[in-house]
């Protein structure tokens, strides 16, 4: 297709960023808000057009005659050439996942832009200070995220990966006068940066041995790349197997190059997607404005890791080990996050941990995806869940934002029983909960069911494990729901101080997203997004997904979810001693969950005690006292010597003559030595 639209998709947010960033402070708040929102709206429309053309135009550059979706590079400009082959290009790669992500990102982003118009001002309509800055940063983020998903080569991805991190840093630290926000943003940046180190090294390894950065080459050319090119057919599992059989990958630091590369790259993904043990930044990131949390830390940026793995999926297929690592990390994280979520008080943190656990779901399903099982069902499921999760998690966050905006606090203890005050929020939140809990026919049900099916196909153990997690999810979400909306309120609200629903700018996005969450499950993802472009079904209609369900799995997971919800209802519908009982039953466990298993403390210890205390400070001391001291020492010694030998110049002629004679003798000695 013509590169015009794609270029605008990338250029418009950037332009918005520059305009609002440079001249925003001269604009009126309203103007800035409208400008930003409009810009994002246009971008969204264009993104829809692009995605639509990709999926449904059926033009030969997107889909070949036997219906396989192709990767097509719309444009690709050289940006920086390291060598003749290693060239960083800025381009626009259109394939199922990037098209999907385009839709997701622009939609959520637009919603958030719209929502923020209402959110970023208090009840008296006074604008948040730095409102324009906020929109500038939002545009910057959108630009970076879009650039990330359409990256044609891994280095472009890395570039935007960093930019995303930076914009997230700026947005988390938006309330920069709040020390907690500052430290949170710092934490987020540094942790992800650390992960990116792995990513970078992975890129270096991979690119060195393949001699290229381009994804298309990665996926069509073997890792021995430069030396002997394996023209392998990755579209069939046999092709992959043969390839692994025939190509002894070169060894790097004891392991196969490919393993190292993929594991390290996955480390980058772990950082962004907040997998254990690099998850600690995400809960703190909730210090940022809630729309930001919705956009960045629920829907888009945090799934970048999933996207990365999906993007390199063909390579991962070559390394069983790497995929297993992905699975294990994902599974553990999922369970851990769900546990923690059950005990948190701050509603945003509950959502944050649920985000972590949901992303872990995607990771797991990528990890278990195998070509031979339903054409890599896991891959599709992950993308599907990414899509649905983005929608309902954004919804939940925006609802939370509404609540916080109304109450002015993050604790459910201050909320209790808001349903009669904020009906719209109540309904939409409920929809979100049902969706994430996986209740048919809400979006979450389908995607999660696909995932569980995929896991089931791979290993029964992980299946049970993940089902449990699914149950926990349903439990803690409804716990939250009840604690916020039901339970009897402590203080009576009356008058116009009473919490009430929001202006339309905030309500509209909630409604829209709620609707999407209701229907998104029916999108026939199987025909749109698969790892090798093969459609899964011959023909699609509205009920394809229903028809495709593996009811044995589906019914079980549904049952689990319902049971969990019932438990939650029993425990939290109205104030009762049960929760306390449970807490006292396993105090240790509860403590650990409440303190998030003390990960933060551990990190504090490592950074402050070990890195600062045991490395930096000693080095600084060493520099000042040893290195510097040695230099000063030289000068000191010279001075001392000069002082010590001053006696020679005693002013007494006879001593002078003594020394003179001594010199003569010395000369004589030298002469004698040289002569004889």
């Amino acid at each position, binding site marked *: 297709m013509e590169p015009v639209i794609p270029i605008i998709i990338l250029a418009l947010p950037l332009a918005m960023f520059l305009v609002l960033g440079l001249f925003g402070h001269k604009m009126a708040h309203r103007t800035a808000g409208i400008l930003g929102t409009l810009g994002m709206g246009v971008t969204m429309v264009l993104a829809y057009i692009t995605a639509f053309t990709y999926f449904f135009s059926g033009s030969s550059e997107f889909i070949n005659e036997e219906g396989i979706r192709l990767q097509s590079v719309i444009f690709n400009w050289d940006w920086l050439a390291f060598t003749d082959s290693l060239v960083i290009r800025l381009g626009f790669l259109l394939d199922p996942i990037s098209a999907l992500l385009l839709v997701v990102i622009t939609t959520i982003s637009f919603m958030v832009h719209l929502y923020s118009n209402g959110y970023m001002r208090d009840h008296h309509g006074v604008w948040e200070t730095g409102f324009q800055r906020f929109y500038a940063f939002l545009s910057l983020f959108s630009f970076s995220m879009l650039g990330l998903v359409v990256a044609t080569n891994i280095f472009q991805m890395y570039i935007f990966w960093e930019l995303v991190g930076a914009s997230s840093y700026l947005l988390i630290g938006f309330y920069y006068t709040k020390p907690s926000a*500052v*430290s949170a943003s710092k934490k987020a940046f540094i942790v992800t940066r650390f992960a990116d180190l792995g990513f970078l*090294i992975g890129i270096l390894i991979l690119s060195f041995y393949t001699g290229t950065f381009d994804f298309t080459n990665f996926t069509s050319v073997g890792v021995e790349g430069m030396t002997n090119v394996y023209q392998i057919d990755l579209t069939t599992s046999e092709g992959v197997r043969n390839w692994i059989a025939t190509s002894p990958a070169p060894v790097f630091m004891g392991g196969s190059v490919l393993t190292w590369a993929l594991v390290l790259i996955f480390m980058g993904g772990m950082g962004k997607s907040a997998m254990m043990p690099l998850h600690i930044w995400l809960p703190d990131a909730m210090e940022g404005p809630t729309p930001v949390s919705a956009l960045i830390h629920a829907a888009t940026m945090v799934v970048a890791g999933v996207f990365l793995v999906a993007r390199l999926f063909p390579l991962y297929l070559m390394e069983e080990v790497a995929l297993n690592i992905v699975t294990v990390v994902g599974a553990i994280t999922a369970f851990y996050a769900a546990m923690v979520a059950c005990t948190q008080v701050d509603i945003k943190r509950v959502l944050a941990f649920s985000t972590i656990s949901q992303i872990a779901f995607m990771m797991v399903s990528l990890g278990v995806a195998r070509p031979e099982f339903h054409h890599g069902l896991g891959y599709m499921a992950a993308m599907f869940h990414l899509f649905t999760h983005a929608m309902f998690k954004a919804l939940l966050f925006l609802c939370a934002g509404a609540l916080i905006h109304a109450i002015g606090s993050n604790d459910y203890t201050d909320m209790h029983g808001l349903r009669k005050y904020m009906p719209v929020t109540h309904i939409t939140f409920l929809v979100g909960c049902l969706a994430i809990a996986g209740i048919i026919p809400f979006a979450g049900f389908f995607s999660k069911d696909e995932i569980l099916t995929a896991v089931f196909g791979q290993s029964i153990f992980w299946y049970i494990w993940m089902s449990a997690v699914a149950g926990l999810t349903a439990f803690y979400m409804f716990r939250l729901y009840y604690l916020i909306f039901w339970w009897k309120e402590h203080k009576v609200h009356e008058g116009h101080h009473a919490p009430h629903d929001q202006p339309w700018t905030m309500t509209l996005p909630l409604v829209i997203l709620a609707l999407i969450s209701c229907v998104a499950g029916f999108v026939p993802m199987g025909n749109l997004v698969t790892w090798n472009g093969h459609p899964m079904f011959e023909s699609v209609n509205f009920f394809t997904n229903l028809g495709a369900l593996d009811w044995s799995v589906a019914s079980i997971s549904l049952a689990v979810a319902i049971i969990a919800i019932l438990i939650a209802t029993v425990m939290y519908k109205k104030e009762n001693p049960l929760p306390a009982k449970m807490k006292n039953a396993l105090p240790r466990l509860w403590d650990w969950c409440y303190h998030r298993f003390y990960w933060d403390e551990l990190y504090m210890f490592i950074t402050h005690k070990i890195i600062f205390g045991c490395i930096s400070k000693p080095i*600084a001391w060493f520099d000042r006292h040893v290195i510097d001291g040695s230099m000063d020492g030289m000068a000191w010694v010279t001075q001392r010597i000069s002082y010590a030998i001053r006696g020679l110049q005693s002013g007494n002629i006879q001593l002078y003559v003594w020394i003179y004679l001594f010199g003569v003798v010395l000369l004589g000695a030298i002469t004698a030595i040289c002569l004889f």
Partner: protein
Amino acid sequence: MFSNLLIYFVVIPLLMLAGFAICKNIRQVRAVAVAGSILLMGLSVWVLCDYLALRAAGNMEEMLLRGEWTWFEPLNIKLAVGVDGVSIAMLILSSIIVFAGSFASWKIDDARHFFMWLILLSTGVFGFFISIDLFTMFMFYEVALIPMYLLIGVWGTGRKEYSAMKLTLMLMGGSAFLMLSLIGIYFHSAPEGSQLTWNILEISQNASISTGWQYFLFPMCFVGFGVLGAMFPFHTWSPDGHACAPTAVSMLHAGVLMKLGGYGCFRVAMYLMPQAANDLAWIFLILTGISVVYGAFSACVQTDLKYINAYSSVSHCGMVLFAILMINTTALTGAIMQMLSHGLMTALFFALIGMIYGRTHTRDIRLMGGLMKIIPFLGVGYVIAGMASLGLPGLSGFVAEMTIFVGSFEHTDMFHRVFTIVACCSIVITAVYILRVVGKLLFGPVQDPHHAELTDATWWERLSVVTLIVSVAAIGCFPNFFESLIRFTFSPEIFHAIGLN
């Protein structure tokens, strides 16, 4: 002689000196300074265009715009000038920083003498970059060193006398080794019986320095330049020197002078003694590898803004030498990019620090905070500088570091790999200390109530800052132009060390 374009890089500063000598008041001094620095910038751009045009016309000589004028007949010392992409890049860098520096020191007291010394210094810098004759090169090198003493000593702050003396003596100590090795090179510059020469191009063509002599001369040469390149453990002049120097001097010194070190390292040491460069690189690789992480780590716990920046300079310049020692086209290109980028962003840093210090009268980050609210322009500038320094894409730092890493990774042996990864780690540590200082200095609540009524940047400060930010962003956004400009120099045919590697 004056038909050659390059010679004006020395002539203009000299004219400026004369101009300062006759200046009556500060306004005339400023006029001369600004006019001169603009001229220099224009000249460097002109040279750049000239160079590109010649290359486009298919001129494949190593150096272009060459000129040679006999100076000391008996010793065959010539005033020989010539430029390639690298030197042009350096010239542009220097002229930009001189420009920004003269605005940054708009309100300096006793401006006349200050600018005289400053311009004398930059005369040395420009002369060094244009000359291809070892003697003149060395002469300009030392011309650039000495004014530092008075600039720091007279206009500096803090323990200025001590720092100025230490800086001068250490740098001169380096140049002592340098002088010896240069003379040594001269006496082996040509095969037995033929005319000895100081001209580096001829020397490298003759390639008549025996390996044994290379082993003897290379370390001295490399250390000699390395001292100025702040190579561990000879970097200790840098923190004190920078901390005590006035703003413009820190800018010029960290921005340009430290680059003389790296430039000399490859232009003289490695270019003329390729064999030794290849065989002995590992020693210095260890040292520079150390200084990369060492500087970064010690920057983490500093509390004085300038110390933080000085140590980060140690780390970044260590990266430059590190890349140079990797001896392959990509890494060396990256090294030069790093020189450019570090030069610009560290100048930006020092400019901003100087401006902040001029307002708060302290550089201790524990005593400052929340400045972003009070002086947003400077605050934003500082954040941008920080982002550049921790390698944010779109700013110069990223490009340079990535080029270096990719280049260094071309070595397949364990040793190089390990050190490359160690160097990579510095990007994390950099992030740590940059964000630490940004968080403490700009964000959070206002520490000192007196800071509340500080005023934001004046127009000349804005000009100087914007100039630097724009150039940083320019390199970051269009790196390919600069890289292609530089890479030519490091083709294995020209740069024998790479050929041997």
